[in-house]
């Protein structure tokens, strides 16, 4: 029988000559094709399930407020707003508004969260004072995101076409008719600071991107 993996010299040879590498890269001798495909199939199903479960766990409010930065600041402010408690008993959790729902955008957001891990490790906003200092910047990021996607996360629940303008106040109905239903504006253009406090200009001059 001829060797399916010719031996090489040098650094590559060190890897390809390794007995484990050679075992992995040549056709199986003792394991049948049926066993290998079944094993791959089962491992694939298990991986898919585990991956999605992990993704869902990382998309819960409990996960978000696992860091005191979130629990002590923005989470406290959410309580008492209409998105926390209301007559219908339907409420929004952190990821409902702050994590995009389409898969690709969600994964991109999860990777962007590596910056939040960085912030956690180095204590970027580990005190109330530090948080208030960067709050205008953080708010500006989120507003820019929602303005760009035309309040996509709001519209996961709130459908302009399902609004009963007659049940709204005269002022609200007029504003929605003139600006929302014409497509001129979306939720975030007017409804800033509805789930968290609005930023107050910090003592320092750090107000770039704040409009």
């Amino acid at each position: 029988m001829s060797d399916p993996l010719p031996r090489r010299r040098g650094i590559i040879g060190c890897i390809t000559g390794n007995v484990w590498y050679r075992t992995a890269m040549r056709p199986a001798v003792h394991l049948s094709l049926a066993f290998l495909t079944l094993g791959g199939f089962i491992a694939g199903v298990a991986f898919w399930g585990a991956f999605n479960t992990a993704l869902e766990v990382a998309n819960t409010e409990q996960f978000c407020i696992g860091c005191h930065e979130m629990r002590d600041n923005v989470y406290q402010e959410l309580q008492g707003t209409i998105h926390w408690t209301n007559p219908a008993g339907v409420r929004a959790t952190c990821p409902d508004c702050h994590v995009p729902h389409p898969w690709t955008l969600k994964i991109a957001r999860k990777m962007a969260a590596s910056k939040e891990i960085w912030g956690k490790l180095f204590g970027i906003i580990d005190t109330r004072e530090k948080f208030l200092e960067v709050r205008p910047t953080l708010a500006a990021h989120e507003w820019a995101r929602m303005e760009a996607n035309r309040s996509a996360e709001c519209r996961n629940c709130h459908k302009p076409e399902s609004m009963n303008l007659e049940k709204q106040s005269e002022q609200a109905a007029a504003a929605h008719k003139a600006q929302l239903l014409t497509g001129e504006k979306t939720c975030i253009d007017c409804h800033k600071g509805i789930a968290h406090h609005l930023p107050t200009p910090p003592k320092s001059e750090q107000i770039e991107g704040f409009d």
Partner: protein
Amino acid sequence: MQTAAAEPRKWREVLMFAILSVMIWPFIATAFVGAYGLAFWIYFILNGPPGPR
């Protein structure tokens, strides 16, 4: 030393199968998804947040 055409032992083949299916491929798959997300994140940093949907 192993000869050129020596067959791997059965235990080594089974163990390598286990390592590949529960560690190496899942790691590579996760890394691919991560790289995919990272690519979009970088794209959004350069070109602004994603548009209407």
